[in-house]
């Protein structure tokens, strides 16, 4: 069974530029999560999708971050414009159900904003 795929693995941009991350979840998983993980901290949920609908985006900085999940499968997370404090690893995860049960994570995208 293929795992969660993410791209790119690394990205370096200057502040005020835009960037986009892509995620392909495990086939058949209805729930998709985007997390931000700063070095030395646990993951912070940015947004949760159930199929192609948003379940929770309460911690998403909506003035600069946006996310979509087309056709309930792949998802993209965009930052525009980026700030220095956005430097982090962006993790995508999926689960079969929305109940917070076992989540499968991708390798993450390490973003550096200079």
């Amino acid at each position, binding site marked *: 069974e293929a795992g*969660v795929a993410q791209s790119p693995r690394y990205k370096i941009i200057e502040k005020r530029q835009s960037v986009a991350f892509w995620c392909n979840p495990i086939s058949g998983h209805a729930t998709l999560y985007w997390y931000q993980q700063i070095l*030395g*901290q*646990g*993951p*912070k*949920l940015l947004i*949760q999708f159930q199929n192609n609908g948003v379940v*929770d985006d309460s911690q998403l900085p909506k003035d600069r971050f946006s996310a979509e999940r087309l056709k309930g499968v792949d998802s993209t997370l965009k930052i525009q414009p980026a700030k220095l404090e956005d430097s982090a690893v962006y*993790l995508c*995860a999926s689960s079969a159900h*929305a*109940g*917070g*049960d*076992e*989540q*499968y*994570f*991708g*390798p*993450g995208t390490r973003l550096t904003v200079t």
Partner: protein
Amino acid sequence: EDQVTQSPEALRLQEGESSSLNCSYTVSGLRGLFWYRQDPGKGPEFLFTLYSAGEEKEKERLKATLTKKESFLHITAPKPEDSATYLCAAARDSNYQLIWGAGTKLIIKP
């Protein structure tokens, strides 16, 4: 405020030296307590889910236990390949959102 606190932040052990990692939680309405392992440059990998106080689960050299206030991850006779950051997370009963701890970095020296 709901929160999850892990201790210690880092733990260095000799190969074969058993120990425990702690995860204290304050969550109104706990649905489940999760343990994940994270290797450098990778996403977290699921280990265990515990749902009720007194529950225990084992996998190889790891055993997770749960009380009403905390969870322990016991590691017995660890090997260098057990070196990783161990994360715990608590799921609320109300919205299933996971509240994550900051992790314990475990280093096993050969």
